Structure formats: C-alpha cells, structure tokens
C-alpha cells in the first residue's frame, strides 16, 4: 500500500485505487464486523464487498466513456466519436444508412446516461476517499464509512446495471 503524504486530488485518487487493500487491512485489524454482514443471509457477499465490486464497474464505465465510441455497420461504414481534451470529433466514413446513424446516436445517448450514473457513484467514492485521508486510513473509519455508504453505493450500482441491461438489448445495426 503506497504511503500517502497529503490530501491532494492525486492522493484521493490513489486512496480510491487502494480501496480493496484498505478494506482487507481493516478487516484483518477488526475482529468483529457486524456492520459488514447482510441481515438474514450467510451466503451473500457482505454489503461492503458488493459496494466495492459496483465501484469498480462504475470506474470501468468511465474509462469506456473516456475512450469514445466507434461502430462498424453492415453497409461497411464506420461512425466514431473521439474525445481529446476540449475537442470532440465525430466522423462518418462511408455511406451509412439513416438507420445506422440513428443506431449510433442511440448508443451514444446510452453511453452518456451510463456515464452520468457512474459519475454519481465515483463522486460518492471520492468523498469517502477524502474522509479516509483525513483519518489516516484508520481501519475503523474506512470500514464504518464504507458500510454507512454501502446501501447508497448499491442503489446507484443497481441504477447503472439497469441502464447496462437496457444497453444489451439487440438493435438492428451495429456490432
């Protein structure tokens, strides 16, 4: 686990990166973790672990959005959107049909919706990371704040999953 000196944005991002490691260490230090257990079940993963998985998925979504979007279509055309700093370039190569352009726009809007949901989740996590830094990553603080926010993380994660499930619905054009 890296040593974190200050409370800069870099440090907060590093704290998020080490999320799993902080939680593992905290669990080792604390012997009883009633706040991690899911009531009534022994088999479901603890809420905090569910929250961590969801957080990882949200960040992957951000990465996907940052890369832009590119689709090839049956007519041989390619439509792409590339983000580069303050520039955003859309390119249409070949002669896509009206339906293919519409399909790309639908994919783009879906990607934007997913980004918006991911942003809410990452924002919540960044706020937590800030608290961990302030507390010097004390295990009780890491676990308590995570457990406290787990229901909210899971709820945001479910919204994201619903959007992703909608995105997996087959459409007429695209890959």
């Amino acid at each position, binding site marked *: 686990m890296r040593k974190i000196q200050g409370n800069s944005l870099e440090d907060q991002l590093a704290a998020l990166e080490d999320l799993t490691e902080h939680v593992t260490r905290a669990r080792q230090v604390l012997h009883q973790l009633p706040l991690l257990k899911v009531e009534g079940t022994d088999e479901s993963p603890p809420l905090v672990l569910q929250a961590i998985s969801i957080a990882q998925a949200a960040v992957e979504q951000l990465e996907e959005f940052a890369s832009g979007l590119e689709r090839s279509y049956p007519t041989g055309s*390619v439509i792409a959107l590339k983000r580069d700093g303050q520039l955003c370039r*859309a390119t249409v190569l070949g002669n896509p049909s009206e339906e293919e352009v519409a399909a790309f726009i639908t994919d*783009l809007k879906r990607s934007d919706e997913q980004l918006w949901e991911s942003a809410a989740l990452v924002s919540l996590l960044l706020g937590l990371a800030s608290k961990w830094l302030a507390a010097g990553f004390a295990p009780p603080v890491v676990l308590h704040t995570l457990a406290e926010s787990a229901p909210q993380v899971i709820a945001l994660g479910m919204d994201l999953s619903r959007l992703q499930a909608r995105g997996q619905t087959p459409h007429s054009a695209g890959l």
Partner: protein
Amino acid sequence: MSLKDALKKFTDSIADLSNLEITTYTGKLEQAVDATTGQIKWDDFKPTSGKLSLVAATLVRPNLNTVNFRAAVAEDADLKSLLDLHTAAVDSARTGRMAVIKIFMGLIPTTPGS
C-alpha cells in the same frame, strides 16, 4: 486499467474547462483509415486536410455562448442525419463536462464540519 488510471484518463481528457469544440467530418473510409493498422488516423482530421469534409462545428465558450457552423451540402451523404449526429455529439460533450463537475462535487462537504 487501475481505478486511478481510469479516473485520471477521464478527468484529464475533459478537465480543461475552457472552450469546448465539437466537429463532425465525413469522407471515404480509405481516406481516414490506416491501411496497415486498420485504425482511424485521427491526426489527419483537420478542416484543411482536404481528405475529409467538415459537416458541422460547434464552439461552446466557458460562458456557454455558442458558435455553430454547418455545411450547406454534404457530398454523397444525408446532411440531415449527419447534423443529427453532430447535435448528439454536442450533447455528449456537454454531458462529459458536467459529469466531471458532478464527480468532484463528492469532495465538497455537504454539512458544516464534515
């Protein structure tokens, strides 16, 4: 990609909250794709390159004043579809910028002393 790398990549790409420039080009596949790698040659996308046609461009200034350009015609293409695509790209670019702001709202305490 690590959590930090993904976040850095995203924020670095949009964190410059100055002008936002959105351009939409059209052209032939072979003019824009590298024959060796099969990748799109993004660096060739300039209004002066002569390989691709600029269909539309939008400049959003920090005060949200917006300047738009649209071509009168699009060679071998349905101009309406391309303009719809450009509008979607403008919306997407704005969403990206708003999402960065939303992410960093998490660092602002919601209650005094928190």
